């Protein structure tokens, strides 16, 4: 019995949290329906830019070179996070887990080789 519904308090708290967030929104919506008519306008809906009229488009393109930083970050930072628990639990691992980890490493090392060939690792 106790083991079955040990998550019940959490579910109740979760529901309370959702209600706590949604009730004021619902009340505000009802209030605006009853008392405060919607009055959108050009200025009111405009993009806020310190009172100046906005110029140009906010949808600009970023340089594709940032992709390199992302992949090198994956290789050197995220890989470490996985390598450490892998090394700690190494002796107790099954063969399947070892192969899976090697495939994961291979994918990242592939990226490293690619980046190396591109000359990204050379400081200029």
């Amino acid at each position, binding site marked *: 019995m106790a083991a079955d519904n040990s998550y019940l308090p959490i579910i109740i708290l979760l529901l309370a949290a959702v209600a706590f967030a949604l009730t004021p929104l619902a009340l505000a919506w009802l209030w605006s329906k009853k008392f*405060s008519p919607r009055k959108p306008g050009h*200025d009111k809906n405009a993009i806020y830019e310190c009172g100046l009229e906005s110029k140009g488009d906010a949808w600009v393109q970023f340089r594709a070179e940032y992709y390199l930083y992302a992949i090198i970050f994956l290789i050197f930072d995220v890989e470490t996070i996985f390598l450490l628990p892998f090394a700690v639990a190494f002796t107790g691992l099954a063969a399947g887990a070892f192969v899976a980890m090697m495939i994961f490493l291979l994918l990242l090392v592939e990226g490293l080789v690619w980046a190396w060939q591109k000359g990204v690792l050379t400081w200029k």
Partner: protein
Amino acid sequence: MDEGLRSELQKQGVFTTTLEELYNWGRKNSLWPLGFGLACCAIEMIAASMSRWDLARFGAEVFRPSPRQADLMIVAGTVTKKMAPQVVRLYNQMGEPKYVIAMGACAISGGPFKQGYNVLKGIDRYIPVDVHIPGCPPRPEALLHAFMTLQQKIDEEQLTGAKRRRHLDAEAPSEFPVPQYGEHDLVPANNPDVWKVPKVTRG
């Protein structure tokens, strides 16, 4: 509800209220000002929000960096003609209900720079001002007094009826025309809906 019955109930420990009172009470105690200053009056405004004068006592210490979150615009300082369209646009971008305090001689009339070719002679030419504070600059106490005056004004507002505020009226405008830079002056020179040229009669 009858006032006598109400005070009688209050003595017994039963407090009664109306939706209107609750609404006004909530709004008047959480007036978030828009964080911007135009000239030296802004220094006094900043002082008013700091520990010595402590605007937080009135629930108004949260100066918001975006007009979307602000209820109150404190026009603190000289409004130049270059800046006037931006001030009006910011006012338009604030969510209703919104209030304006014109702080200092410049914001209410142009002040010592009234004769200047580039100075707007009072922000009330373009947007409806709720409280005017004279002074050059007004001390923080004067700003606190303006706050309390505004709170009194809010407290007396009505939710329904002919005297209700602009945002509750579907017919009333939600935006005020933003002046443009004309050849010699701002065009239009004022918004006739909120400000009329005073008549001068010589006797």
